């Protein structure tokens, strides 16, 4: 294999398994055998890498006050004010949490770990108004994202964020709430068509009593738990939640469902069922070890075949993080990252519903594509963006509160927003080898193969900087 082939392979690997790669790293890794490079990715630092932005002590204190206020019937004006302020603080911390994670992805030394976290974030899609819960869930997805799927699934199922989101707090003996049991099978493990309504009913009973306490810690409420006999997939027993999960994992359909989703995320929007089967068998036989599945995937020949290279539409996160990482971008007003995510249709921690983001061509419509093609020049050239975005429905309450008769008249004047970011051009240019031509830079920055048109467009370019801005503004840059 030629060095050039390996150069393309490693670049592809890092685009899919991470958020791109710098020129010097690519140069260095291209000299190694690709299996060794994959090993390297999987052996990323396993140190405790949790996000610790949200202060648990402070959050718990607020939750206690909040619970007290909710329990009271008639609130004084001061108490009402306090309740509003807590909600406002939580919203603010939620935004900070979003930015903390995006910054982490931009700066991480463990790109695969963050990419897996992003995958599980979409798979176990969840919204929580409580930033402490949201952070907990995100850390679970990071900690176990390359570990045992069983552990990950149980930890997610026991997290307050998910228990709350899927109404398991209301799932009680004699009064089951089936929401969690249904999504567990439909979206998290087996997929539609692989279970019956009766399986949902019976398993919901097994999860009764799975709640969390006022500190945000999982708590098994024995008195709300239905410990009677359940019939689940033909098996009869006094099943607890963990038993149900084990029966679900025993079914190869679960391995297939997860593998197909992994394939669609890392390889191609259109799954090749042969490859999915290969992956699923391996995953199942490896007892749901996620690292083993990923190793299999990244070392498979088909992963590097032309139909899978430079053909996937980047998600908004992949696009924004890749761009920011490549050019060492500093956001002077990091809030703009939230606005961009929201305008591009992937506001992290706020998936559209429990099914997550649909992905693929769904990311692209006329407005999101035009915006995507403008963002590089705005980010890299410190431009202004005249884009006010759409209010998030969950922010409606805040909007309603802030709307008063006096501000109404000003509503027609929409606030201007500024990307207000800068790339570190000297640092970027320093990573490139001396004498690199615009065409070679294009080859490095784009994943799709160069065609004549693009080659012609950049061949006569004078500078690498202007070339970089041009390339990143191309439709081809939307692919990875």
């Amino acid at each position, binding site marked *: 294999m030629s060095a050039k082939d390996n150069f393309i392979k490693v670049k592809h690997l890092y685009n899919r398994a991470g958020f791109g790669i710098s020129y010097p790293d690519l140069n260095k890794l291209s000299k190694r055998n690709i299996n060794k490079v994959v090993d390297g990715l999987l052996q990323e630092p396993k140190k405790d890498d949790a996000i610790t932005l949200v202060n648990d002590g402070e959050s718990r204190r607020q939750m206690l006050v909040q619970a007290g206020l909710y329990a009271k*019937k*008639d*609130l004084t004006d001061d108490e*009402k004010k306090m309740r*509003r302020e807590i909600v406002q603080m939580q919203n603010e911390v939620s935004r900070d949490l979003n930015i903390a994670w995006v910054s982490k992805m931009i700066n991480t030394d463990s790109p695969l770990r963050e990419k897996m976290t992003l995958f599980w974030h979409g798979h176990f899609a969840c*919204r929580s108004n409580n930033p402490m819960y949201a952070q907990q869930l995100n850390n679970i997805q990071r900690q176990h994202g390359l570990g045992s799927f069983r552990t990950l699934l149980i930890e997610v199922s026991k997290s307050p964020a998910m228990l709350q989101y899927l109404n398991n707090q209301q799932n009680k003996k004699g009064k089951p709430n089936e929401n969690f049991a*249904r999504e567990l099978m439909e979206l998290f493990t087996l997929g539609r068509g692989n279970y019956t309504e009766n399986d949902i009913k019976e398993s919901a009973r097994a999860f009764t009593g799975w709640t969390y306490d006022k500190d945000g810690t999982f708590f098994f409420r024995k008195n709300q738990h239905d410990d009677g006999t359940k019939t689940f997939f033909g098996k009869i027993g006094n099943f607890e939640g963990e038993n149900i999960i084990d029966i679900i994992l025993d079914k190869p359909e679960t391995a297939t469902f997860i593998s197909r989703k992994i394939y669609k995320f890392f390889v191609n*929007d259109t799954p090749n069922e042969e490859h999915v089967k290969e992956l699923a068998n391996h995953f199942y036989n490896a007892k749901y070890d996620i690292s083993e599945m990923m190793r299999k995937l990244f070392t498979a020949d088909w992963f590097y075949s032309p139909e899978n290279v430079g*053909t*996937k*539409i980047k998600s908004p996160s992949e696009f924004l993080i890749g761009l920011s990482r490549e050019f060492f971008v500093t956001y002077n007003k990091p809030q703009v990252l939230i606005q961009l995510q929201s*305008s591009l*249709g992937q506001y992290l921690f706020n998936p*559209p*519903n*429990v*099914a997550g983001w*649909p992905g*693929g*061509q*769904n990311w*692209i*419509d*006329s*407005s*999101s*594509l*035009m915006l995507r*093609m*403008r963002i590089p020049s705005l980010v890299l050239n410190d431009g202004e963006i*005249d*884009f*006010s*975005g*759409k*209010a998030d*429905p*969950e922010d*409606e*309450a805040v*909007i*309603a*509160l802030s*709307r*008063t*008769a006096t501000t*109404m*008249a000003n*509503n*027609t004047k*929409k606030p201007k927003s500024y990307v207000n970011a800068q790339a570190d051009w000297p640092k970027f240019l320093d990573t490139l080898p001396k004498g690199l031509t615009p065409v070679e830079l294009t080859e490095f920055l784009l994943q*799709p193969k160069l065609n004549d*048109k693009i080659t012609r467009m950049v061949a006569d370019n004078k500078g690498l900087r202007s070339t970089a801005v*041009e390339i990143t*503004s*191309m*439709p*081809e840059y*939307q*692919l990875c």
Partner: protein
Amino acid sequence: MNRRNFLRNTGFVAAGSLFVPAFMKPLEAMALDELSLYKNLVVVQLSGGNDGLNTVVPFGNDIYYQKRKGIAIKPEEVIKLNDMQGLNPNMQALQEIYDQGWMTIINDVGYPNPDRSHFRSMDIWQTGSDSNQFLSTGWIGRYLDSNCQTCKFPYTAIEVDDSLSLAMKGQTKKGIALKDPAALYRNTNDPFFKAMLKSDKEHLDEDNLGYLYKTMIETQSSASYIQNTSKIYQSKSTYPQSGFANQLKTVSKFISSGLKTRVYYVSLSGFDTHVNQINQQGNLLKQYSEGMAAFLKDLKSNNKLEDTLVVTFSEFGRRVEQNASNGTDHGTANNMFVFGGKLKKQGIFNSAPNLSDLDTGDLKYQLDFRQVYGTILDKWLDVNNGDILNKKFNTLDFI
């Protein structure tokens, strides 16, 4: 200028007319008489869950006053429509519209097993799904996908906003979002983007790159068409000063200049009134009503009102009983408004909400919102609603 250069200068058609793919076919192909039969739908979304009971007030029902001691609208303030229901006093501007017979109120529209989350319920309304079904395409998007006679062009559906709502996204076709046609035109005609599109027939295949180029070309061609068609039009009507009225003014400009768009989508947000509802909702209803009244009169003066149908919805209504903060919490069924110059049933369409027969404090729905969509699809957009809504819904008699 030779023919080749001329084509090049007109933008995307550089590939030469022989190679123009079907989706880029020029609009001139459409006969003029088709134009005059053009019917428009305008969807107005009130985001946040508008409190329908303080919008169309059941002043004839004592239960309303018992349950809403702090926020009920006094009978003498209500704009009475019959002896049971009337409009919120902030909706004065709509009285004339109502009296003209241009407005229909449909009470208690909802769906089985309602969801009280803004997100989920908005998704359900925008996709037309059941409450336990997750669809990634919107009902208007699927109308675009259906490839019907009336939905051929990429600008068949326009949302006057910065980003495109799920309602407008189909599997293969999507509506277009724009706030300002001139800005989109400038953007898509950026010299760099134009250069990207030069002689690009090699990219127009079915893969993802082809899809990106196709979207780009459609956006550019739509932007040019919209800008060139609408720029000459000058509205003579005055609109109130609000963002919402501006959106409607843009829609009116598009309709009145003869744009061949079938569906327009606009929204007004801020209706999540958990606290001190009276003023907040009042301001929004005033904005809504004044904007709508100006819009409808503008259309009337341009002879477009008979070709236009406007429908207003919100993702849910609110609970019958107010909360302790003089606001209301998330509820279920809600009223919808239909406006137009050719309504079959004008005024109040069905009976007022039954406030004594509630489902744990919430209104029970009388009509499924997909019956309303189904009626519009069948009778206004001339498609079979079963093809779009995944099952057939009975139509209603408001049009």
